[in-house]
């Protein structure tokens, strides 16, 4: 049984569908990359899976359980972590408080502490500045904090990252992808939305290319070369 399955998923923000019947499966332990031009539904797909899209039809199953229509916080408690795009940290709270919020579903303070150690190892900068408010961080540092907050959940079964490399220095992107590899080796299932197809192809088991709310190509990273034409058509690579 696939850990995540969507069937004929449609979603809209009111005018026209942004998702036009997405069917995908993500197996336990797999890393799936979703690429495609901006404005064609990648972020909306993650939002629909997390329960953040109010008008949504089709099916979303997490661990075999139908979760479409379930409140987002309930879905999160089932072990789905969604690290969104952008600047969504609590600016008036300290860095440490922001991180602890990410561990709200953890069963004990010890588990949160263990996760906190892992996050601080990945982003030493957050440890140095743990007591400062998030508003003192630069744009890129806030992205680190957002990713770190996502990694605070101890019982994460599915990690969804929306453009983890956006706004980060190249050396930090390397570190993030190294830690993604580490999480995978430990058995984590991961979905990544990424603009940089070459980067995600180095790590993903399978790729989906999205355009106009459809998957226009799906395949293995090794099959990219023979499908170069279709990929270049959509990405201008």
């Amino acid at each position, binding site marked *: 049984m696939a850990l995540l399955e969507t069937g004929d998923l449609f979603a809209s923000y009111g005018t026209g569908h942004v998702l036009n019947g997405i069917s995908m499966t993500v197996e336990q332990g797999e890393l799936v990359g979703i690429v*495609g031009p901006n404005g064609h539904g990648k972020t909306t797909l993650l939002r629909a899976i997390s329960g953040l899209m109010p008008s949504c039809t089709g099916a979303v199953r997490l661990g075999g359980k139908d979760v479409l229509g379930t409140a987002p916080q309930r879905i999160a408690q089932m072990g789905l972590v969604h690290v969104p795009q952008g600047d969504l940290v609590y600016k008036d709270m300290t860095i440490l408080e922001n991180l602890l919020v990410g561990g709200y579903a953890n069963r004990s303070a010890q588990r949160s502490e263990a996760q906190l150690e892992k996050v601080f190892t990945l982003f030493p900068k957050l440890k140095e500045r743990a007591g400062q408010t998030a508003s003192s961080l630069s744009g890129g*540092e806030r992205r680190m904090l957002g990713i770190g907050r996502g990694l605070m959940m101890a019982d994460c079964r599915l990690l969804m990252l929306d453009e983890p490399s956006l706004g980060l*220095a*190249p*050396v*930090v992107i390397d570190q993030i992808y190294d830690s993604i590899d580490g999480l995978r080796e430990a058995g984590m299932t991961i979905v990544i939305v990424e*603009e940089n197809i070459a*980067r995600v192809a180095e790590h993903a088991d399978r790729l989906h290319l999205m355009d106009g709310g459809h998957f226009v190509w799906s395949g293995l990273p090794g099959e990219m070369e023979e499908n170069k034409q279709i990929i270049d058509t959509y990405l201008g*690579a």
Partner: protein
Amino acid sequence: MTEALNLLSVEKLTKAYGAMKAVNELDFTVRRGEVLGIGGPNGAGKTTLFDLLSGVTPATSGRITFDGHDITGLTAPQICHLGLSRTFQLNAVFNSMTVRDNLRTSAYFGRENRMLPGLRFDAAANASADEVMELTQLTSYAHATAGSLPVLQLKLLMIASAIVSHPKLVLLDEPVGGLNPGEIETCAAVFRQLRDFHGTTIVVIEHVMSFMTAFADRVMILHHGAKLHEGPADSLAENQDVVDVFLGVSGAAESRKGKMAGGQGDGAS
């Protein structure tokens, strides 16, 4: 009278937040017509530097000279009216206004002080808005509400808002982050036109190294608010400190690739 070679010069510029110096005694110059790239680790002070140059935040000490004027301590509108404008990392447009109205507003208020704004935009503002929409390929979006724009068009609108007042110097803060290669090329084409046909001087912060090395004439790397490296774009990967704190292994590889692409003329150069 000949114009000075340097359009911008910065001397001992410092911004302190308590004991932390976000920008620390920084000296650098920007020549007329050049493209200067600025890189550095997250939190190095890059955006703070733009805030100081554009008057969004006052400097703690030091001096900024722009086009012969000492602009240290001037307000953001005063600096904008002298011909220095900027973009922001995150969305900074008027979401509920159309693309054209955003640009007319920037053109009208960006060029001179309006003590008694008129009830309608003047002909010059309308003409500038139409001209810059063409340059940035936004003409077909003229009547779209800014808040409803796709990511690429939103980025182009932010760039258009900054250049519609015909600045001498434009500061671009991560203009191509989050865009795919085809979209980056669309933006790069706009920047090349600005540089080549409008003579605009450009300072750009960016983490996308393939873009940076292909487009910038010179690159300055900041670390802890100070200069870690300064030199031609292809010199980055040769400096081990830059590789260690900023580029990493794949960034160094990408910076070499970007240079090659630039040499072949199919990159962003």
